[in-house]
């Protein structure tokens, strides 16, 4: 315990005495962690964007006019039980007629054409949303195979090419978001690791001296790890404090393009999680970076 205290005090003292070097390292770490915050929000952004596009897609199954409502509701129940399906909503013939009239209330030609027809020409339908855009083909095939006798048609074939395009676009967004995250994270990691390596490199003679006068490897390594720990804690705190006003400033601007995307709300409602991520990444990079960098100097005989 006493040794741990000594190592901690030495590490803290070194951090303080190497003022400029510590400041420079913390500076680089803060930039890295700001990048991490940016990556978190890029991921949320692409995830939400893909989700929003996906929500706009659905298919409708139309039933023959003489189909009983209870039969259609049974189909609805069956479909709701499928793992691939997110939601199913029933649109009765009357509702379809009402919504047509509402939609075309300023279009007398359409309304007149409708009036000339006898009865309600609209069919009852089920509007189906899939959990994943790739599931629509399966849902289409499923409905056709089981309910052919009461089914008039499913609008999937007409919408298939649009759905496929949206699907590949969503995939593109996800891949781009992930690729960008991985590349930027790697760059940030390399910059941080190299900075730490340089700092340890400047201490190589000190490490050698300590070992020559009889210090064990843990006694040599310990203060550097403490130093790294302090760098991680301070830089994660600074990155957190800096990123808050930035998000606060940009959040309304992003909201103009995507009303469902409220970064500021996300930041404040995930306050501790984001800080913990930064703390974990910051301390992880600094401590692991220091441990790896010092390893080669401790291996020398």
């Amino acid at each position, binding site marked *: 315990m*006493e040794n741990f205290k000594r190592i901690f005090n030495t590490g803290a003292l070194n951090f303080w005495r*190497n003022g400029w070097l510590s400041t420079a390292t913390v500076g680089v770490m803060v930039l890295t962690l700001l990048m991490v915050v940016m990556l978190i929000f890029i991921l949320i952004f692409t995830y939400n964007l893909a989700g929003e596009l996906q929500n706009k897609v659905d298919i409708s199954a139309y039933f023959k006019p003489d189909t009983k409502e209870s039969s259609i509701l049974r189909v609805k129940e069956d479909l709701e039980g499928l793992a691939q399906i997110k939601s199913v909503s029933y649109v009765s013939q009357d509702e379809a007629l009402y919504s047509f009239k509402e939609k075309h209330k300023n279009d007398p030609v359409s309304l007149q054409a409708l009036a000339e027809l006898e009865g309600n020409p609209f069919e009852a339908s089920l509007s189906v949303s899939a959990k994943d855009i790739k599931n629509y083909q399966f849902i289409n095939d499923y409905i056709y195979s089981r309910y052919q006798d009461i089914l008039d048609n499913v609008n999937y074939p007409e919408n298939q090419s649009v759905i496929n395009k949206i699907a590949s676009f969503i995939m593109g967004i996800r891949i781009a978001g992930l690729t960008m995250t991985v590349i930027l994270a790697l760059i940030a990691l390399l910059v941080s690791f190299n900075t730490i390596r340089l700092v340890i490199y400047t201490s190589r003679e*000190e490490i050698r001296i*300590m070992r*020559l*006068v*009889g210090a*064990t*490897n843990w006694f040599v390594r310990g203060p550097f790890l403490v130093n790294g720990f302090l760098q991680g804690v301070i830089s994660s705190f600074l990155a957190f404090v800096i990123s808050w006003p930035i998000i606060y400033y940009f959040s309304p601007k992003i909201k103009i393009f995507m009303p469902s995307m409220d970064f500021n709300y996300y930041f404040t409602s995930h306050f501790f999680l984001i800080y913990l991520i930064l703390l974990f990444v910051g301390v992880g990079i600094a401590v692991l970076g220091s441990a790896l960098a010092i390893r080669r100097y401790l291996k020398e005989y």
Partner: protein
Amino acid sequence: MPLILFDAVSKLYPHGSVVLDKVNLAISRGEFISIVGPSGAGKTTLLRMLIADVIPTEGKVFVDDVDVHRLHQKELPFLRRRIGSVFQDYKLLPQKTAFENIAFVLEFEGKNLSEINKTTEEVLEIVGMQDKAKHFPGELSGGEKQRLAFARALVNHPEILLADEPTGNLDPLNTWDVVRLLLKIHEGGTTVILTSHDKEIINTLNNRVVTLDNGKIVSDEKKGRYIL
């Protein structure tokens, strides 16, 4: 049985230069031995081999019958604690004060805080550095650095003291201070190995003198003089 034994040690560097050539040397417990010779004779390399800072190309180095270069990395610090080293370039830790440079050695030996403070202050007083305790090495003169290096080497009462050209950078007054200090340490029972090319010092000491030239021992006399 000698305390230290260099058994046919050679050190060759890849480009072909021979620093040490089959050196055999036995040093008994409590001995004061001076290793002399011109610059590049191999004196420092020999001392560095003893603390496993240099690995011999051939031969073995024993301390108390233990082959120094076969020690596991974890055992090495314990050997090095038995040997106090005063390096030619002092090797002080620049980020630590004079006090901390000494206390550091006691810290990793696991001494308690009051013992560390007491012993460090005593040692600083012995080398006349008590008023410089809070100074960093960069703020000390050559002589003061040398005394601090001695203090660090002695603070944990090592069995062996290596002093590599300890007077090389000192003025005559400081030089004789160091010589007196070495003799005092030796009187306390420590085995002292001194390297020097200062003829006057060696002749005054009137102890065992081993002369190295071109990596070979050219003379080894019980009451020797500087012959080169």
